[in-house]
């Protein structure tokens, strides 16, 4: 069955119950120093009716070694970058340097309170300032805010800036008639959701058969005169560079709108081309993609928003600025036109430290080399899979490439099956069924963090799955076969959702 599988085999895998089922009354995994102040009768501190009465029933009681084994065992059930290539398209799963982790744990940063006085946090403020400078140079957009906590958060911030700018430019009345945000049908779902959050109604722009923005459709929609902006991803979610980007910007600008770029795919451009030079007005970046801050099984991220000088007044408060008195830095809260705060304090600071370390250890040459390697690897895969899978768009891809299950569906094997079978071959699957406009899409992004050997292994595995799809479709349809658990019934899970553990004889939790 797995004759062609070279990357993995099977081995013992430890089971582990939910911590709640491991709990044993009376066990503890902590030790605190004894209370060193004379005790006040607790009712004198908090009246009885304000106190908890459930004695935290149900909260686990386990020893330290129980906790260690619990999580170490569970961790072995995960795939991770450190185990191999993680070709999730649009997610840029690149190597997370240990050095950057060490930097984020330097006590002078890890133990710094966000409300420490400017005087007491000069090193931390300088980090923010430097990172903003670097990102401005990389994007060609001079004004930067690091406050957004993730890509979608950066989108919301950027779109609100667009709106604030138009309100200021056109004045209440006129701007009220500009409430349309144009978004390509290939865009990531967060784009329309973020636009909606900012009170825009979304109009969808078609993609051409070549997978690029349909300029005629764009002109047509712009003609309506209600366009506040256009949110496009470049390279777009098909991994194709929007060759007409300059013209696109011109059209939108002439229609009185602004161009928002989703920078999730900047790993194709860093050091090679700059959105600011293309005519883009505002962009968000994903430091947890392009700048290698670890994805952590679902975050934290950091979604900086970079924009033109024109838009700078609208960025969130506070901003970090140089003091004119000396070399130091200070916080500037006095920005009357700002859209306001999008997050408490300064954003996901720990991610900023890691991203700055990434930029400074790579150096300007290293950043460009990473981009070249990322694109080269995607091209190599595009080339290597051409014989076995249908590739809807012939244009040479940038950092990621999309294929479909068109040829395999004839035998009843679909993208989901191919993805699951890829698991048996020891790879994390690519992004599937995204972008939505490509039926059975398989979006593959190798990133620069994978060597020739593993790329070939991936291509061979995909080829042999293609063979299996013909010779033994059942095998593929029932994959994965080598995992500790099979395909889970997600439909049933959603029908009667069980979202938490409950004590066998539930007495409620408070």
């Amino acid at each position: 069955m797995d004759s062609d599988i070279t990357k993995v085999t099977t081995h013992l895998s430890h089971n582990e119950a939910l911590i709640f089922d491991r709990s044993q009354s009376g066990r503890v995994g902590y030790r605190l120093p004894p209370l060193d102040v004379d005790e006040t009768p607790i009712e004198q501190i908090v009246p009885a009716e304000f106190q908890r009465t459930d004695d935290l029933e149900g909260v686990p009681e386990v020893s330290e070694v129980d906790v260690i084994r619990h999580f170490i065992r569970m961790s072995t059930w995960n795939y991770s970058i450190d185990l191999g290539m993680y070709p999730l398209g649009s997610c840029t799963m690149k190597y997370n340097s240990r050095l950057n982790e060490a930097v984020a744990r330097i006590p002078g940063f890890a133990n710094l309170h966000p409300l420490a006085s400017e005087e007491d946090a000069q090193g931390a403020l300088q980090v923010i300032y430097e990172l903003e400078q670097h990102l401005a140079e990389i994007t060609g957009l001079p004004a930067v805010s690091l406050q957004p906590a993730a890509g979608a958060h950066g989108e919301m911030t950027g779109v609100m800036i667009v709106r604030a700018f138009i309100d200021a430019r056109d004045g209440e009345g006129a701007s009220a008639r500009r409430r349309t945000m144009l978004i390509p049908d290939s865009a990531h779902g967060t784009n329309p959701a973020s636009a909606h959050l900012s009170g825009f109604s979304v109009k969808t722009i078609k993609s051409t058969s070549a997978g690029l923005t349909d300029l005629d459709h764009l002109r047509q929609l712009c003609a309506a005169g209600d366009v506040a902006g256009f949110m496009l991803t470049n390279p777009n979610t098909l991994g194709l560079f929007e060759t007409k980007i300059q013209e696109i910007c011109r059209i939108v600008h002439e229609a009185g709108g602004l161009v928002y770029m989703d920078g999730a795919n900047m790993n194709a451009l860093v050091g090679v081309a700059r959105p600011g030079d293309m005519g883009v007005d505002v962009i968000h970046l994903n430091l947890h993609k392009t700048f290698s801050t670890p994805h952590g099984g679902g975050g934290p991220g950091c979604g900086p928003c970079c924009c033109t000088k024109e838009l700078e007044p609208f960025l969130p408060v506070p901003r970090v600025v140089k003091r004119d008195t000396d070399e130091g830095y200070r916080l500037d809260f006095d920005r009357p036109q700002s859209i306001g705060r999008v997050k408490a304090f300064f954003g996901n600071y720990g991610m900023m430290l890691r991203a700055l370390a990434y930029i400074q250890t790579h150096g300007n040459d290293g950043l460009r080399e990473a981009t070249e390697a990322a694109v080269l690897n995607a091209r190599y895969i595009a080339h290597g899979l051409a014989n076995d899978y249908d590739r809807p768009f012939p244009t040479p891809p940038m950092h990621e490439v999309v294929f479909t299950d068109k040829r395999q569906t004839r035998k009843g094997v679909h993208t989901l099956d191919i993805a699951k079978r890829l698991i048996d071959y020891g790879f994390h699957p690519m992004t599937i069924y995204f972008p939505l406009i490509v039926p059975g899409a398989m979006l593959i992004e190798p990133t620069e963090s994978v060597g020739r050997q593993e790329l070939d292994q991936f291509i061979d595995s995909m080829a042999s799955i293609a063979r299996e799809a013909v010779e033994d479709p059942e095998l593929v349809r029932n994959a994965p076969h080598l995992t500790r658990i099979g395909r889970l019934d997600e439909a049933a899970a959603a029908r009667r959702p069980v979202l938490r553990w409950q004590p066998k004889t539930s007495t409620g939790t408070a």
Partner: protein
Amino acid sequence: MLRQIGLSSPDELFETVPVELRLTRPLDTPAALSEIELLSRFRGLATRNTAATRPGFLGAGAYSHYIPTIVDHIISRSEFFTAYTPYQPEISQGTLQAIFEFQTLVCQLTGMEVANASMYDGSTALAEAVLMAERVTRRSKVVACDAIHPEYLEVVNTYVQHAGIHLERVGFDENGQISKAVDSAIDDQTAALVVQSPNFFGCVEDITMLAQKAHDRGALLIVVVTEAISLGLLKPPGACGADIVVAEGQSFGVPLSFGGPYVGLFATLEKYARQIPGRLVGEAFDKEGRRGFVLTLATREQHIRREKATSNICTNEGLIALAATVYLETMGRQGLQEVARQCAQKAAYAARRIGELEGFSLPFSAPRFNELVVRAPMNASDLLARLASQNNITGGLALSRYFPDRLNDFLLCVTELNTRSEIDSLVEGLAKVVANSLLTTGA
């Protein structure tokens, strides 16, 4: 490899990028640094974060608590921190089961029925709670207390400004709790009443009573908690009738790290499960009946619902939620109560000592957990600045940062990490600074 795909130079990789857009110069960012150089550079920067090494009494939304050593060991496992969002359950059960346990723990602590896989932080969780209340009630007015963390209120303002939601503010009384004006503020257009407890001034609100008031008008009660450790001692909002409870989870084993990454906790009632923003993990079974976990109710999310999603949040705070889970399971049922107890006791001790100080007073009389407002006989910013320079203590937060008229007030936070001797030297320091400055002004 280049040749293999028929290219002769790296530049050809970018053939689809118009020539005039291609950068012909190197980026104007620094040249590469080696590990040695980078580490010494950042260590150097760190030494200029002088507050990080000083005993401190800063709280106000970020708290220094003891973090068990094992937390960092576990979140540093490659399998956890270098994994993506668990889209492929067969090879992501580690992350999925951990989130399921996180959701359960959040429910247990808040006393609610369902919780999500995390929000960016407490402030954005609160903003999302307000938006959700509007969806649930289809009402557009929200009443919020001035004693909510000012930065949280700013974030809520930003989020609701284009959602057609009218935010009405209610003040606080001389005890430091929400003022009676709340009664008239809530009407049948009110989607929700929003309160923080313990509130920004450290005062515990009477949530049961407020839930009553909100429900009487068909409004929801949203409770936000910034010091989550208080849940180890205080009656859980769920038990008081709250409909949505959000909290900042930083107190659960997450370093201060100059404000982030932290983790937002979001919990509500079962009946609102399909209105929750963000990710949810649920139980599922495979063909052989083996139990596992999956991301569920995805129809709420933007991948499918696009602009009609309950939220735009995608990447959340997975690894920080894991840290909180490890923390909660390590401290456990007893530890969480013990930490809460020590915080409350030490704060009470500090309050007593400071209350006895000549010229100092504690303006608010409501019950408190581990934060308190202190009124000094001089400008609080000056007082704290001198305390730092002369006694090497970070004495707390001058309230003038957020409340310009409260020039002499500052907010003090005490946790289990503040030893008695630290508290005593704080008290002595305060007295000394005031004495000296009276002298100088006297002279």
